[in-house]
């Protein structure tokens, strides 16, 4: 393992760092992170994803990168690229596991130590946006990411919720976490917002609707938009296919594309 280059140097080529957070599990943080990354790439940006969910790393599967070996260069760990043009880079704990079915049963201090390495030792090349996918909660992983990114600007966080009160209830706490740790809130995304039937295009609200927008109003945050519950999005993620390419005319990809543009504008003006 090479000695870590100074953190500031490693991330010097990364223009914007965005955390993807949610107090609540299962709202689609990894799906939204992947969707936003694909949308930003489609719009011509160089994008990186740092997957710090040590217990449940989902992104490698969603980007269909399998279980590659991680290599070292002088500057640190080389991220895995999804294509030869290096338009989308990924570093995930998933790459470090010999056995993807083996649980990472670590207490906080050990998780903190590995995340520090992740943040410090990945040799990101020039990136327009680095998205950091996180597990649910407000604990060791989140504090570790923030402590280690403190020397580099964290532009802010995007919070993902679903419409239900059980979800927005946890996301309110995540908003408090951001305020207490000084992380600007770039906006709130309401995922699984309405279900569009692929056969009849009728929209039904399986998980209700509007909770995310209400939460944004309540907390004075920007509402970035809604992403519907779309079986084609779920299956694309499941199979590691580029949803934004395959279903570029769908309402869902328009929604994700719109959110990514709003996000980019907010990053470029703050």
């Amino acid at each position, binding site marked *: 393992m090479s000695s870590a280059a100074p953190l500031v140097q490693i991330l010097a080529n990364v223009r914007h760092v965005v955390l993807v957070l949610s107090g609540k599990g299962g709202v689609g943080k990894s799906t939204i992170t992947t969707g936003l990354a694909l949308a930003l790439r489609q719009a011509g940006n160089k994008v990186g994803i740092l997957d710090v969910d040590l217990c449940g790393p989902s992104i490698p599967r969603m980007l269909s990168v399998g279980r590659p070996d991680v290599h070292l260069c002088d500057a640190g760990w080389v991220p895995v690229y999804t294509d030869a043009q290096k338009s989308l880079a990924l570093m995930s704990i998933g790459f470090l596991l010999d056995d993807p079915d083996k649980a990472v*049963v670590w207490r906080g201090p050990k998780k903190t130590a590995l995340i520090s390495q992740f943040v410090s030792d990945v040799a990101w090349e020039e990136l327009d946006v680095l998205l950091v996918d996180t597990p649910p909660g407000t604990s060791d992983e989140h504090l570790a990411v923030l402590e280690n990114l403190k020397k580099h600007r964290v532009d802010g966080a995007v919070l993902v919720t679903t419409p239900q009160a059980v979800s927005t209830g946890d996301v309110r706490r995540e908003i408090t976490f951001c305020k207490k740790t000084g992380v600007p809130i770039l906006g709130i995304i309401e995922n699984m917002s309405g279900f569009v039937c692929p056969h009849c295009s009728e929209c039904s609200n399986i998980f209700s609707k509007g909770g995310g927008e209400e939460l944004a109003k309540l907390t004075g945050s920007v509402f970035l938009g809604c992403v519907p519950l779309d079986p084609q999005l779920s299956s694309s993620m499941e199979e590691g296919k580029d949803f934004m390419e395959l279903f570029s005319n769908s309402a869902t990809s328009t929604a994700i594309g719109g959110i990514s543009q709003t996000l980019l504008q907010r990053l470029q003006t703050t």
Partner: protein
Amino acid sequence: MADVPDNAPEHCPGTTSEKAGTSASCQGCPNQSLCASGATKTPDPAIAEIGEKLSSVKHKILVLSGKGGVGKSTFSAHLAHALASDSTKEVALLDIDICGPSLPRILGVEGEQVHQSGSGWSPVYVEDNLSVMSIGFLLSSPDDAVIWRGPKKNGMIKQFLRDVDWGELDYLIVDTPPGTSDEHLSIVQYLSSTHVDGAVIITTPQEVSLQDVRKEIGFCRMVKLKTTIFCTGSALFTEKMCQDFNLTLLGKVPLDPRIGQSCDEGKSFLSEVPDSPAADVYRTIVHSIQEYCSKRVTGDQDTC
């Protein structure tokens, strides 16, 4: 067992950690020399105390999932409601999701207060025979965030087990956060001198969920916790996974929008929508769990 004293510095490794007293964070801590002497590394006496305290609890069930958002809290709450529908049974729920406590809302008791008496903290009563303890009741506002590292979360879990006046219980159901981390290790360790009937693992049929559930199964095997499984939605892959791991698939719950609605409103959907196909499956699952628990009482070996 990691334990963080109140006067410890921010990155305290815990008084029973191998690095107690010797880590960089220990510099300047008033407990440093005590920890470094090794006196704090003996088995946590709380484990035996908890064993004693919970000897009046007949059955303990953990509800786990590697994956977030699959319905652990929903299931825990409705399992409790269903078990408590027998008024002769005493049922309690323990919510150890310290960062995201959902049970108070799902049970319709958000905003209730916990009281302290000579015999300990009293849990909040949902029904006469159904009580719950959650950090949610200790927060002064719905916006309060619990930004704690592992050792402090572990301390809270210990207090819940040792200091709550649970009373005589037929069932104690423990709802957990997603993952395989401090909370999961702690609950297993703190309950190690008691009898735990087993764990129910919740999943959805997607591979992204099954991927995490396989890890959870690995965790259960590592800590020698008897496991069974249930699933939401249709489940060909789940059935295969259960076969591969020699686990019982308790049931497949169809997605019903009224489940989420009931949870948001703090009502039991078993009462609100008793005719729903999902309610039928829940009742079947609860029955299987009751049978499993009663077999353990009679000492029968279960192949689960």
